[in-house]
């Protein structure tokens, strides 16, 4: 009998705990963001200002975030998709319209980043950060391996002199930018022949590359582990602070100019809280801390004005109009995504 009582007690305790857990009517928002994409010390400040707690978790790719949301494991109030993913999520009816009246700080968001093609009237998205994809290179190592070499083209990633000294970015859409641009095709191609030609270039490149990596590229490049790496401009800004040999360029063939945005997914339980957080992140001072911490370029004109001059004039942080005009923004390739995925797996499965 004693044992039964004990079990009953435990069960009762469990039920009480479970119920109180549900009943705690707390003001909380669930934020799902890219890794290393904001200065996490601002989260406590947001809670202090508004009383809203932030449950913060991170992801590594747009596709991962999309899968988490659609697989029912969501329950997020705010996510940060890139341009083409915003378009896809709008098309799949995954987003809630944002009430801009709750976001007075939208006035600080630069007009050039508003009303972009993927969401022409900013019904669903508020711009967060932007940047380019390019080549991060170690000037000393490049000079040692290929004296006099000027890094200005994607084709350096296929140069045998750098064999074993190249990192590629471990993401389908981004890895394909280099071969597609080199071949003169669109980074949004839906032509199988163009895609397969790019795939064959990536397979031919396999013996030369050291690894396909995600975020650990930053650590490895700071530690002089390779001469060349395909990275985003913000990652380059971050690494260049720690290793003065590093430099970053956007290849002359053009690249992907991307825009990351704040959106509220359908199924969000605290839309007002999410809008308060969007407003908070759009505050010039907060955005300044975020951009300095992460290295990623701000979309906030008031923040830009607050930046030190050497950052404002740095072409890595703020590429020229020519670079942008020479580049493309990714769009969702629809049904053709399956062909892309197959080609990507063929690249990865190829024996180096």
């Amino acid at each position, binding site marked *: 009998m004693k044992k039964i009582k004990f079990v009953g007690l435990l069960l009762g305790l469990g039920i009480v705990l479970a119920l109180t857990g549900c009943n705690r009517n707390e003001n909380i928002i669930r934020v799902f963001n890219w890794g290393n994409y904001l200065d996490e010390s601002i989260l406590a400040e947001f809670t202090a200002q508004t009383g809203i707690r932030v449950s913060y978790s991170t992801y590594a790719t747009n596709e991962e975030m999309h*899968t988490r949301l659609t697989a029912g494991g969501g329950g997020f109030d705010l996510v940060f998709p890139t341009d083409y993913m915003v378009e896809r999520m709008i098309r799949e009816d995954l987003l809630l319209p944002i009430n801009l009246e709750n976001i007075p700080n939208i006035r600080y968001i630069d007009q050039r980043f508003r009303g972009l093609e993927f969401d022409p009237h900013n019904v669903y998205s508020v711009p967060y950060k932007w940047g380019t994809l390019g080549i991060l290179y170690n000037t000393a190592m490049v000079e040692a391996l290929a004296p006099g070499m000027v890094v200005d083209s994607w084709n350096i990633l296929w140069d045998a002199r750098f064999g074993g000294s190249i990192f590629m970015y471990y993401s389908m859409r981004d890895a394909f930018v280099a071969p597609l641009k080199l071949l003169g095709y669109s980074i949004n191609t839906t032509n199988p022949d163009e895609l397969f030609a790019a795939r064959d270039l990536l397979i031919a490149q396999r013996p030369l590359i050291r690894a396909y990596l995600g975020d650990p590229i930053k650590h490895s490049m700071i530690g002089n582990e390779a001469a060349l790496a395909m990275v985003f401009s913000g990652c380059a800004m971050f690494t260049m602070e720690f290793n003065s040999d590093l430099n970053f360029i956007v290849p002359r063939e053009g690249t992907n100019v991307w825009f990351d945005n704040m959106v509220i997914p359908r199924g969000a339980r605290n839309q007002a809280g999410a809008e308060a957080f969007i407003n908070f992140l759009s505050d010039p001072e907060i955005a300044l801390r975020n951009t300095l911490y992460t290295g990623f370029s701000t979309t906030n004109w008031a923040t830009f004005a607050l930046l030190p001059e050497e950052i404002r004039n740095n072409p890595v942080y703020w590429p020229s109009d020519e670079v942008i005009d020479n580049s493309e923004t990714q769009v969702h390739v629809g049904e053709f995504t399956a062909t892309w995925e197959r080609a990507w797996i063929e690249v990865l499965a190829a024996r180096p």
Partner: protein
Amino acid sequence: MLKRIFVYPYILWMFLFIAAPLLIVLWFAITDTGADGQTVFTFYHVARFFRPAFAGEPFFQRLYIVVLTRSIWIAVLTTMVCFVLGYPLAYALAKFFGHRSILLFLFLVPLWMNFLLRTYAWMTILEQNGVLNALLSLVGLPTIDILFTDTAVVLGMVYNFLPFMVFPIYSVLKDMDNSVIEAAQDLGANRVQVFFRVVLPMSVPGIISGLTMVFMPSVTSFIIPNLLGGGQFILVGNLIEQQFMRVGDWHFGSAMSAILIALILLMMGFIKLIDRQPRNKDGPAEGVLY
């Protein structure tokens, strides 16, 4: 009556967390979502795994088969290395260091740390300008470059899964009846004979659970090949992760998982065959001690 009450939670647990997930995987593997959103039964996704890219493509050159055979090879290699390293270690722990040895404790300590953290640490150790090469050049030896190779992947797996080999063998050896060994010695067996004809056959159950417990996580791992293989050695675990995390095709991901589960079951059945010798309840296999 009272005792039975305590069994129900485990039955419920096993159903909820073991049987039900497997059934769900199987369900997704043999269904698909039709054009009108209806669920239809089909073996399309299972067949997709084996399908050639062009007519007449040799079986072992097909995309997914290449990855699968590579995974099995890496897992077999890992299991063999774990056995070669793990058996003597388990033997030493059981026979020479007593029951509460500090060695056993030290062996457990790394397991308190997060698995990801331990794998990340290996990246720092193995990289070109890493800890290992710094030590090598300090003593005047040539440096090595094995990060992002299959060697690094096997090393990472052996490091992480070695305890799964050692502990089952250790517990069998520890509980082995010493009088059986003494009997063998009395009957004139030398040390080599005692080991190969008494100790080793009696530790077969421990070896088998060790082999399975190392082989299974090795063949399905995707974090270790991602970090230490640098995408150079994608394994079937990576393919499945890709389908679930990036592509979002649960049907194909489940089909691959189901194929992998079937394969593991087959292999376990094969290993069990070795253990088929008739055995006394609390003694070594019959016919060993003649």
